C-alpha cells in the first residue's frame, strides 16, 4: 500500500500545460530596457554564465517558478490526492451519528456543541471515504437513515447539514440494528459510530471504565469514534406531582405536592436555583447545591383551581453544559370524581365501590344524565357488545375477548389459581390462594403463553388449564379481563376482592391523572382524548406543524415530540391544548460517556477512540491554498520595483 493516491489521476494530462507556460513565459517575458555605456563586459558575463551552467537561466527565474508552482498545485488539486489512512475506502460504510440530547452539550464555555464537532469529523470521514459509498444514519430515540449508500458528496453534505440534535435519549441498539439490517443487503465490513458515548444504562467495569452493553450481534467491525467530553451539567431528571391525600373532591382548590429532581455533574460540584412557574407566574424558587454525582428532589406545595401548567427551570450559578435539560413541563388536571360504570348485575362490585368517596358509580338510581366517557367501566361484556360505552380503564368480568376466542374457551369445572403476577398493578396485595372458581378457562391445543403475548395480552393469573386474568394495554387504554365470572367464584367473599377493586380504582386514578401526574418527556406526547374523527394541527419547537386525526375513540396519539418546548394542538386555528415536553432523562443529563461498547458477543468489545482514526485525508484543499498563497507572492513580486535606476 502506498501512502498516497489520487482520486482523479486522469487530470494528470494538465501537466502538458507546463509546456505552453514555459514557451509563453520566455516569449512574453517583459524586461525593462536599461541603457548602459557598453555591453562589452556583459557579453563576457553572459557567455561565462552560459558556459558554466547551461540551466542556470532557469534557476533564477523566480516568476517562472512561482507560475509553475501555481500550475502544479492546481493540477495536483484537480487530481485530488489523498493521504491513505486505511484500506477499503471504496467499501460501503454506514456512519451512525448520535443525535441524542447530550450531543447538544458544549464542553467549553462558548465552544462548539458536540454535534458541531461531530459534523466536522463526519465531513472529514466523507472526504476520506469517497468515492466509497456512505450511508448516514442518525441515532436518536430511534434510528433514521438519512441517506442511502451513495458517493454523491452533495447529498451527503446536505443531509449532514440538516441533521439536528433531538432532545431525546439515545438508542444505540436501534442504530446498530439498522446497520445490521443494511449489512444483509450490502457488503459492509466497517461501521463507524460518531458519538459522545452517552448511552442508556451505562455500567462500570472493574477497571473504572464505563461500558455500554448492547444486545446486538455485530456482523461487522464497529469503529467507535468518541468525541472528547469534559462537561459540567445540572439538569431536571424528574418532574411530577401528587395530589395531597387530604383533599376532597368538593374542594375548590386542589392541593398538590410537586417534586422536581435535579441531578448534577458526576465529576463537579454544581449549584444554582430551581424556579417553579405556574401558568407563567413564578410560585417557587429554591437554591440547590449538588456534590459530584448527587441528585436532589425538591418539593413544592401549591393549590390549583383547575388545569395548571407548571414549568420548572434551573438557573445555574456557573457553566452549564446542556441547556435543554434545564426546563421541564407538567400539566396538573382538574380535580373531579372518578366516573365509574358498573353493570347493575355486578352487585358485589357496586357494593365494593361504595366505600370510595370520590367515585361516582353509574348507572345510578335516579337515572339522571350520565357522561359520555367513563374513567372505569366494570362490565360483563366486551366493548364490542356495548360500543357506546367509552372508558379509559375497563374491567371485563366473565367474558373472553373475541380475538382470543380461538385460544381459550370456558368450561364448567373447578379451576384453582395456580399462579398470578403479584407485582401487577391490578393483583398487587390480592391473595388468590384457595379461591374456588366454577368457570374453568381452557386454552386450546398447542396454545402457548406466547400466543397471548402476540395477541397483545399479558397473563396476570393462570389457572390449571389456562389463563384466568388477562391485561391489555393500548395507547390511552387499559383493559383487564377476568375470564371467569366472580359471581361463580369465592373471590367476592375474600379480603382480596375489595383490594382488587381498590387497585382498579388506583389504576384508573393514575390513568386519569387525578392522583399523580408526571412531566411529559420528549420522544412522543402522551395520548390525549379529544373529539372523535377530528383533524388537529400540532406545532412544536424546531419543527413545522403536522396534522393528526383522531379515531372513532377520540384518542390523539403518536405525536412526536423530539424537542424540548411547548407543543400546541389546534383545530382550525384555535388552540385546544398545550403540552410542554422536557428531556427528563437522568442518563442524558449526567452526560456520562461510555468507554467501551460490548455487543452480545463479549469477545467483540469495542473500545472508544478519542483520537481520530486513520482516514484517507484529502490534500486538494491544502494544494488549493498553496496555489493561492503562491499567487499572492507572485503578485507581490510582480508589483515590486525590479530595477534600481542609477544616476
Amino acid at each position, binding site marked *: 500500500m502506498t501512502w498516497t493516491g489520487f482520486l482523479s489521476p486522469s487530470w494528470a494530462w494538465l501537466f502538458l500545460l507546463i509546456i505552453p507556460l514555459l514557451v509563453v513565459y520566455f516569449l512574453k517575458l517583459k524586461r525593462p*530596457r536599461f541603457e*548602459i*555605456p557598453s555591453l*562589452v563586459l556583459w557579453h563576457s558575463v553572459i557567455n561565462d554564465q552560459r558556459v558554466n551552467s547551461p540551466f542556470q537561466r532557469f534557476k533564477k*527565474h523566480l516568476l517562472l517558478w512561482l507560475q509553475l508552482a501555481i500550475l502544479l498545485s492546481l493540477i495536483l488539486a484537480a487530481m485530488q490526492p489523498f493521504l491513505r489512512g486505511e484500506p477499503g475506502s471504496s467499501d460501503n460504510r454506514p456512519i451512525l451519528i448520535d443525535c441524542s440530547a447530550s450531543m447538544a452539550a458544549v464542553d467549553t464555555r462558548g465552544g462548539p456543541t458536540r454535534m458541531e464537532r461531530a459534523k466536522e469529523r463526519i465531513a472529514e470521514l466523507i472526504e476520506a471515504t469517497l468515492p466509497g459509498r456512505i450511508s448516514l444514519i442518525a441515532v436518536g430515540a430511534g434510528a433514521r437513515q438519512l441517506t442511502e449508500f451513495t458517493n454523491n458528496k452533495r447529498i451527503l453534505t446536505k443531509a449532514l447539514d440538516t441533521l439536528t440534535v433531538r432532545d431525546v435519549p439515545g438508542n444505540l441498539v436501534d442504530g446498530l440494528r439498522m446497520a445490521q439490517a443494511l449489512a444483509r443487503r450490502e457488503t459492509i465490513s466497517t461501521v463507524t459510530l460518531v458519538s459522545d458515548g452517552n448511552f442508556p444504562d451505562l455500567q462500570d467495569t472493574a477497571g473504572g471504565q464505563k461500558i455500554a452493553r448492547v444486545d446486538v450481534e455485530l456482523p461487522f467491525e464497529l469503529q467507535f469514534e468518541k468525541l472528547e467530553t469534559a462537561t459540567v451539567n445540572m439538569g431536571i431528571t424528574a418532574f411530577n406531582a401528587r395530589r395531597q391525600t387530604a383533599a376532597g373532591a368538593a374542594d375548590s382548590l386542589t392541593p398538590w405536592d410537586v417534586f422536581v429532581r435535579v441531578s448534577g455533574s458526576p465529576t463537579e460540584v454544581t449549584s444554582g436555583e430551581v424556579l417553579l412557574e405556574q401558568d407563567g407566574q413564578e410560585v417557587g424558587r429554591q437554591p440547590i447545591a449538588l456534590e459530584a454525582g448527587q441528585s436532589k428532589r425538591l418539593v413544592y406545595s401549591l393549590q390549583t383551581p383547575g388545569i395548571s401548567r407548571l414549568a420548572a427551570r434551573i438557573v445555574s450559578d456557573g457553566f452549564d453544559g446542556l441547556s435543554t435539560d434545564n426546563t421541564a413541563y407538567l400539566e396538573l388536571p382538574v380535580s373531579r370524581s372518578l366516573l365509574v360504570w358498573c353493570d347493575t348485575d355486578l352487585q358485589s362490585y357496586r357494593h365494593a365501590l361504595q366505600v370510595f368517596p370520590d367515585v361516582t358509580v353509574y348507572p345510578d338510581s335516579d337515572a339522571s344524565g350520565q357522561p359520555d366517557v367513563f374513567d372505569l367501566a366494570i362490565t360483563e361484556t366486551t366493548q364490542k357488545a356495548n360500543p357506546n360505552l367509552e372508558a379509559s380503564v375497563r374491567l371485563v368480568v366473565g367474558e373472553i375477548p373475541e380475538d382470543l376466542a380461538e385460544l381459550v374457551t370456558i368450561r364448567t369445572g373447578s379451576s384453582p389459581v395456580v399462579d398470578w403476577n403479584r407485582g401487577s398493578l391490578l393483583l398487587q396485595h390480592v391473595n388468590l390462594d384457595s379461591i374456588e372458581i366454577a368457570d374453568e378457562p381452557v386454552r386450546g391445543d398447542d396454545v402457548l403463553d406466547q400466543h397471548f403475548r402476540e395477541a397483545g395480552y399479558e397473563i396476570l393469573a393462570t389457572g390449571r388449564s389456562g389463563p384466568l386474568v388477562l391485561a391489555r394495554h393500548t395507547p390511552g387504554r387499559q383493559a383487564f379481563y377476568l375470564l371467569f365470572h366472580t359471581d361463580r367464584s369465592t373471590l367476592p367473599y375474600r379480603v382480596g376482592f375489595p383490594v382488587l377493586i381498590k387497585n382498579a380504582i388506583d389504576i384508573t386514578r393514575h390513568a386519569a391523572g387525578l392522583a399523580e401526574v408526571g412531566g411529559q418527556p420528549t420522544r412522543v406526547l402522551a395520548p390525549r382524548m379529544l373529539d372523535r374523527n377530528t383533524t388537529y394541527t400540532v406545532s412544536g419547537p424546531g419543527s413545522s406543524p403536522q396534522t393528526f386525526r383522531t379515531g372513532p375513540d377520540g384518542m390523539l396519539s403518536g405525536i412526536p415530540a423530539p424537542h424540548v418546548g411547548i407543543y400546541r394542538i389546534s383545530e382550525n386555528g384555535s388552540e385546544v391544548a398545550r403540552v410542554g415536553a422536557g428531556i427528563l432523562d437522568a442518563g442524558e443529563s449526567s452526560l456520562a460517556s461510555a468507554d467501551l461498547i460490548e455487543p452480545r458477543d463479549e469477545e467483540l468489545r469495542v473500545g472508544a477512540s478519542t483520537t481520530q482514526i486513520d482516514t484517507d485525508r484529502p490534500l486538494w484543499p491544502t494544494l488549493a491554498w498553496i496555489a493561492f498563497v503562491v499567487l499572492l507572492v507572485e503578485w507581490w513580486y510582480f508589483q515590486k520595483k525590479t530595477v534600481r535606476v*542609477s544616476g
Partner: protein
Amino acid sequence: MTTTSPGNQLTTLLDNQALTRLERLRLQPNRRKTNRTQGEHASGKGGSSTEFADYRNYVPGDDVRFVDWNIFARLNRPFMKLYQYEEVMHVAILVDASNSMNFENKFERARQLAAALGVTALMGIERVSAYVVGASGEPPRVMPPSSGRVSMRRLFDFFERAECGGDAPIDSAVEAMLRRHRGKGLAIIISDFLTPTSLARPFNLLYSAGLEIFALQVLGPTEIDPELTGDLRLVDSENGGTVDVSSIDELHGIYHEHREQLQEHVRRQSRIRNGRFLSISSETPLELVLFDLLQRQGWLK
C-alpha cells in the same frame, strides 16, 4: 572643484587655483622619447644646454669654446666640456568621445583630465597635440602641436568645444590619431577602454611610433558596481545592441571578475611597453586625481 565659468575663471574645465598648482607639475615619462628639436628634455647626446654632462679629449676641429680652460691650465692638456642636449617631447592627448563616454560624467571628467595634463605639458615646454575621436570613419578633431604658455588658451578652447558622440572603438581612434601625429614622446589615452578587441595592436602602434603610453581609464559608478536587480534588457549606447539578463543581481560577482580582467589587460598592455595605467571613477574628485593619485602613481611630479 567648480567647472562653471565665472568671469574670472580662465576655463570652464579647471579653476584657477588648480591651474596654479598644475603649472608647477611636470609629466614624468618612464623613458626619454624626445625629438631633435631643442627642448627641455636632455638627450643622451651632447648638447648645448647649460647642464654639464661629461669631459672628453679634445680632437682637432672641436669648437674651442667648449674647452675647459681651467683644466687645461692645470694639466696642460685640452679637454672638451660636454653638455646635456635638451630635446623637445611630443605629448599627444587622445580623448575617447564615443557614446560610451557619455555616461555619468565620464566625458566631462575626461576633458578635465586632458586639459590638466595638457597644461602640465605646455608648462614643461612640450609640444602638445590633442585628438578627440568620436564616430568611426570620421576624422578626429585635432589640436595641432602647440607649445608654450601661449597655447594654453588654445588647449582650453579645444577641449571646451569637444563633444561626445559616435561609436569609434579605441583601437580605431588610436589609428586615426597616428595617421596625423608626428614625433616621439608621450601618448595620453583617456578612455573607458570598453572595447571587445585586444589593445595589443593599438598599443603596438603607439609604441612603434615612439610614444610612451599613459592609459587613463575613466569608468562610471554603475560600471564599477552595477547595482541592478531583476530581469533586464541591457542596451548598448553605442550600437544599440541588446542583451537579456535575468536575475542580474546574481551576476554581479562574474561582472566584477570581468571588469578586473579588462583593467588588468589594459594595465599589462601598457606596462610591457613601459607605459602606465590608472583607472578612476568619474565620481572621484578631480583634485584627488590630479594632485594625489597621478602624483603617487608617478605620472606627475
